Structure formats: C-alpha cells, structure tokens
C-alpha cells in the first residue's frame, strides 16, 4: 500500500511567553499559536472556541497588541513577546483587579470566554482607563460570551475601573 499523504516538515523554535523562553520541538508547521500554547506548553488558559478569530476566547498580547492566537502561526511568533492570561494572573491563588471584578460582579458563568475577556479588558484598561460604557462595549465586542448577555461583564469592567482609580488615588 502506498502512502499518498505527505508528511509535513517538523520545526523546532523558541517562543517567549510571559517573559520566559520556551523551546518548541518537532512541531508541525500548521500548528497555530493557540495549539502550541495549549498542547505543547501546557498553557491552557487560552481557549479554543472558533478557530477563526471571531470569538476572542484565545486572546493574547503579542508585542503589546491584542491578538487572537488561533489565527497566528506559532512558528511566526518567534522573537515576539507573548503574554497570555497566565501572565496576567498573580501567583498563588490571588486574583488581579480585573479578575476579582469579574468574579465579584457575576461576570463569570460557564467561564469559557472569561480568560480571553480578562486579557482583552486588561489591555483596554491599560490603554483607556476611563473608557465609557460604549467604549467598553466596542472594546470587548471581539469577545463572544453566550451566557451573560454582557450586563455583568460591563459591570465588572466598571468595577475594575473604580478599583484601579481608587488604588491610584492612594498612591
């Protein structure tokens, strides 16, 4: 029997994730960043929900820019600074301001969209700390949530804004 399926070339490369270099060995060229983060580096906080950059569940920061890791080839992300939800999460079992607001305000239901939203909202509040409700809605409109209808998510973002400005006032 002849094998008609061509075996793709296997690649090895380095990815910088959350400030640390990770060696990726013998990966298929077709593996996207999301797959490599999840399956090769064990960083499963980024979620797989649409595989075409529509839902934002796999949101990461690449060189400070919000990206869907499912639409980026992992091998093309070498030499770039990648930050995942794990990189925005305090060690131990604490929560960041944004994470705390999500839990306290009821923005977490099934939670599948939550890590992507944490990345997206953290990015928003860094860029635009005083975002209005409409700006918040626009900023997170690339993150689909099917459970909440977004009401508690908006409330959580606003609570995080308040927490942040209270913290900064104390400085």
């Amino acid at each position, binding site marked *: 029997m002849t094998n008609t399926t061509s075996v793709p070339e296997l690649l090895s490369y380095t990815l910088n994730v959350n400030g640390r270099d990770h060696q990726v060995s013998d990966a298929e060229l077709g593996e996207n960043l999301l797959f490599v983060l999840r399956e090769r580096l064990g960083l*499963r906080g980024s979620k797989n*929900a649409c595989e075409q950059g*529509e839902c934002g569940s796999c949101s990461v920061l690449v060189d400070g820019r919000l990206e869907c890791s499912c639409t980026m080839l992992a091998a093309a992300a070498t030499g770039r600074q990648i930050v995942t939800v794990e990189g925005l999460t305090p060690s131990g079992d604490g929560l960041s301001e944004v994470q705390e607001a999500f839990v306290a305000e*009821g923005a977490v*239901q099934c939670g599948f*969209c939550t890590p992507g939203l944490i990345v997206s909202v953290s990015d928003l509040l860094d860029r635009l700390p005083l975002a209005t409700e409409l700006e918040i809605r626009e900023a997170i409109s690339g993150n*689909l949530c099917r459970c909440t209808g*977004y*009401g508690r998510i*908006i409330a959580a973002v606003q609570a995080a804004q308040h927490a942040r400005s209270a913290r900064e006032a104390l400085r």
Partner: protein
Amino acid sequence: MTTVLTTGPGLRGGLGESVRRPDGGPKARGEFAFSSDLEAEDMLWAHLLRSPHPSAAISSLDLSPAFAVPGVAAVLAAGDVPGRQSFGLDYPDQPVFAGKVVRHVGEPIAAVAADHPITARRAAEAIAVTYEVTEPLTDPEAAMEAPPIHERGNVLFHQDIVHGDPGATGEVSVEGSYATAMQDQAFLGPESALAVPAGDGGVDLYLATQWLHVDRDQIAACLGLPLDLVRLHLSGVGGAFGAREDMSMQVQLCLLAMRTGRPVKIVFSREESFLGHVHRHPARMWYRHSADADGNLVKVEAKLILDGGAYLSSSPAVLQNAACFAAGPYRVPNAVVDATAVRTNNPPCGAMRGFGAVQVCFAYETQMDKLAAALRMDPVELRLRNALRTGDTMITGQVLSGAAPVAEVIRAVAAAPLPAEPGPSDAPEIALPGGAGRTAERDRVRRGIGFAVGFKNLMYSAGFDDFTTARCRLEEGRVTITSAAVEVGQGLVTLMQQIARHIFGVADVSLGEATTAGIGSAGSTSASRQTWMTGGAVEAACRAVAERLVSSVAQRLERPLASLRLDGGRVCSDDGAVDLSLVGAASGQVFEETAVYRHPPTEELDEKGQGNAHVSFAFGAHRAVVDVDLDLGLVRVVDVTTAQDVGRALNPLQLIGQIEGGTAQGVGLAVMEEIVLDRGTVRNPSFTDYIIPTALDSPPVTIAGLIEEPEPGAPHGAKGAGEPPAISSTAAVAAAIRDATGLELARVPIRPQDIALALAAFEEDRQ
C-alpha cells in the same frame, strides 16, 4: 424536622445572598479545566468523518487509506459497534455510524484515532466513501406525506389538544401564519471529551454533558457493557443551553479508546460543533384567535409543524411543550391545537433553552397584538384582561395550582420608565443601527416599542419519573455535598453550598466529584429544574445528616431529642446547658446521608391533549425598545426591560445572570440568529457567518421586577429561572420592530432585507 433551624446570624453565604461562585476564581485565572483542557499520558486524538450530503446511500466505504497514514492507531465505522447500533434520548433511532445511508449533513460515518489532531483529520479525510446522492427531503410540510426516510416514518410525534367547545366563536377574530428559524445554542466551549480505557474492561469518560447518567446508559448499551463498567465523570462545561442533552461523539470516542487501549481525546472545531449537535426546531405556525367585543379570549386555534430534522432526539417533548403552551399565559376557554413534529433530511433538532415554548410565544404574542389592534384596545390591557391566575384552567384542562403572577410581571414591565428618546443628532455613530462602519442615516431611524409575555413548565413532565440524588457528609465540622448534577455555568455549585450553609451554619462546604461512579442520577441540567430538584435533594440530605447529628447528641448526653436543636452551626438545648460546635456534637463520628428527591407525579396527556402533565410553571414579560434604519433594515435593540416570576431569589446576582443571558439569546433569535439551510446543507457553520450578539448588539437589560411569590411545594419556594428570559424576549423585539416599521414581520429572525425590501416595495406601491 423541627430540630433543624437555619443559618445563624452573622454567617455569610446563605440563601438569598449574592454569594460568589466557588469556581469563579479558577475560571478567571484560566485554571479551570474544561473538557477541552484534559490530557493524559500517551493520549491519542480523535476525528470523525462526517457526511457532506443530507441524503445519500453509501455504496462503498474504504477505510484502508486512513490506516495507511503514519501515526494512525485506529479507524472505526459501522460494524465496529459491539452493542446497540444506535442511540437517542427518547428512542434510539440515530446510528452511531451511518451504515447504508446518511440522513443529514454532518452524520458521522467513521472515526479515527491518531497521535496528532492534524494526523487524525487528514486520515479521516483520506477515507474513501462512495455516495449515491439522493434528493433530500427538506420541506417539513411535505415530509408528512413523503415516502419515509427512516424505518420509523416521517411523523416523529403528533399532539392534538381539544379543549372546551371547538365550535365556539367570538365577535372578533384574527389570523396569521408565522415561522421561526433554526437557532443554534452556540455555547463557547466546543464538544470535547477524554476517554480512558480501564483495566477492568470498562472505560472512564471525562466530558461536558448535561446529564451524566443518561449518557452513561446510552453509551453502555452501544458498547454492550454493563453499566458499572462505563463511568462518566463531569469535566468543565463551557455552556450547554440544551445542545449537550444529546450525545455527539461519546460512543465513538469510547470505542476508539477501547480499541487502541490508550486514552483518546476529541475536541470539535466550531464547524463540527454546528454540525454535531441538535438545534432549536424551526417552526411553522398557523393561528386564529377569537375574542368577544370586550377583549375576552374565546378560542385559540393553532396548527404547528416543527422540523425535527433527521432523528428523533427530544422532539416529542419539545412538540408537547409547543402544544401545551400554544395559547400563551392566558385564560382560553376553548382551544384546538394540531401539532406535529416531522422528520426531514435537515440537521437534527432537539433541546434548546425554552424548549418549544419560544416558537409558539413568538406566534401567540404577535396574534395578541393583532387582536388588540382589531379590538382597538391597548395591547397591555388586552393581556392583563386575559392573564392566567392561580385557579384558572389551562387548555390542557390542568388547573393552575401554583403561583401565577402573570398580571404582576406585565404590570411591572409596563410601568417601568422608557429609555430616553434618541437624540439622533448627538448619538454617537456606533450607537446607531448597524454600528461602526454601516451607520444609518440619522433622520431615517425610527424607534419602536414592543411587549410580550411568555411561560413554560419547570422540570420534566407528562409522567416522566423525574428524580435527583444528592449526598451530604459531615466530618470534623466540614460539610461535603456530592451530586452528579451538572454545572453548566448557571451557578448550581454556588447554590448547593448556600443550601448546606443555610442548614449547618458553617462556611466550609466542599463539593464532591460529579460522576456516575458512586452516586445515583441527578437528572438533567435542563428544563429549569436543578434549583428545585437538586436543591431539594441537597436540602433533604443535609437535613437527614442534621437530624442524625442532633439525635446522636441526645443519645450521648441522655437528653430528650425535643430539647435539642441545630441552630446557627451549633447544637443547643433550650435551657442553654448544651451548646456544642459541629465538631463537638459529632464527637468523632462521621455522618453521611444520601437523599433522593422527586417532584409530585405528572400524567401523560390523553388523545385530546388533556391531563395534569406539568408540575409547575414560570412566567415572564419583556418590553423591547428598538431603533430601526428604514433604508438598510438594520436594527439596534436599545433596551430590554423584563419582569420574571421567580418564586424566591436564592442568589440575586446569579439570577440576574440568567435573566440577562437568556434575554440576549432571545434578542439573537429576533434579529440575527439563524442556521441557514440550503437543501439540507448548513451554509453558515461558523462564528463568522452564524452571528450571535456581541457586547455592542446586546441591549442593557433592566429588571423591572423579580416577582417573589413563593411556589407551594418548591424547596425554598424558588422556581427555576433559566428559561423564561429566553421565551418572550424574541417576541417583544419583533413587536418593537413592527411598531417602528408598520410591517407584518411574521418570521424571526427579522433580517435587514425583511425590513428594507418590504418598505421599499411598500413605497413603490404608493407611488
């Protein structure tokens, strides 16, 4: 039962509080393990080969090209199923693998396990299938008379309701034909699971589902294994909304694991998810309402056709619901309903939030608006005049014995202030219909207001033996609650802890693993039933442990049982001589009790659709405000205000989450969500093409009333709250668009062309 009092003062986290969910932190940190996050050593990846055709005979199937792909460990197809060849919630009419024929696009034909997901997919694609494509049966009305496409025929279920005098007539009558499209549950977490072969010849399956035990029963039958060798363990569930009631790949995955002797994981792509689970039934509905001159309903007639797609799934129960609730939450003395669910070569349909009540609500509420117009009556007044009350008889002959605050939800919504009028000149562009990039002409935007009321049964109906099991263990002052009930995001895990805290007065309540190994069924997380059912079982198990604890103290201290009580986390005596902590009271003993909770029995409907088929009902109302761009047909839902009959709010924050989330799904069906079918083929199986509301599309939801009229017989008086928000929201948005446009709009979703082309044609006629 008198010896158990409740949470003491000062303890936080009991019933009625907006307690934080215990899985919230791990979920926000990205550490919570969903079923797609599982891994095991030496794990393989599975992929299913699916039919690209809605109707075809398979004349040959050659698996050998898949076996030849390096890295492939197993390839299975029809003939490799050792036990029952088919499965199904109501009747097993759905093959594990299609054999001689395929009946819908996406039907599994073969399964591959390989060392890499890309390898598994390539190998599946290499399988050679010869199809003799046949004409698909896709018109549900034609299906009834068409040659059967399955040995069990094309009529999946029929239900008549004949109530009162079918010949009764009113002075005013209105008539209409309505349709609702196929909606997808579109949960975010794709179907996924990990099957691990066990040394005893059985299999352990870690998965996301809505009902572990019913999956277990079906899998065991198909594998030809005794129940105890098939153990299901709940993994993190990324939303459900009905789509995880039916099995999607459970049997195939277990077969691959058992064949290879290795753990096998599967994760559906979004396209596979669209093709691999059941959807909300599309409905075609004809209605005639008759009323007297004062607006009292005299008769409702309806003919309902639900497209069940290729297999039975839960079509009978969905159809019975559609029939039972066909007249809405109104006093209707005479009714004739003719309801049929049919089989077609469209994708299979089954459970989705609202379960048959959504489709008819769109139709009957449109009819109520038409009737109000014909009577020159205020639509809210017409609804109030006919609103069901406790003691009324429904069209099934069942007397409504529980709480029925229908008028209250209507009044709460009607009395709520309206959002500010649009200031078209100062509204930001992104707040106009169409949002960024497709902004409407400001002076061509019209505002509309619509109103709708809906209702639905809670829990399983029509004679089903609906029960749930829960266990309470008290050890060293710590309480552990174990149940196989599925947390899908709604917050049952929080509620179980709240109930236990309420009884024991301790903060420390742990939750055991949800699994079929070691505890009985908790029933399905569907039909808005777990707060009542698992809530009832947890309460009963906790009370049983508390009773035993107090008895043991009475025995040990030789005091009369009646003089002791558990109050605020302490066992105390009336005279103050006994005051023990839980640890002290237990004195080293461990107490464990398992309780089974059943709701009162229900009856099947008779041939005229009469009978006490349901236990309880929940009611809700929505008012929608929309802005419509008359030229482009774009709609912005500006605000939705709602009131809901909840019995009692056990966790207000979680309750709000259910109401907002369910409302958004109803808004989606009203204006954007539709599985587009082209002769049986799904044209939009992706989140690029199947649009669900984003944060910009979803309106703010104002809750004008949580009507807390405790439901007699319900644990803590609480009604399930998951489904009512998804019922009348669609109808209210549609009514608002009608109000803005003056168009009839008898089908949802209302697409831009339904508005823009109709208005353009109307303009043309006028000129």
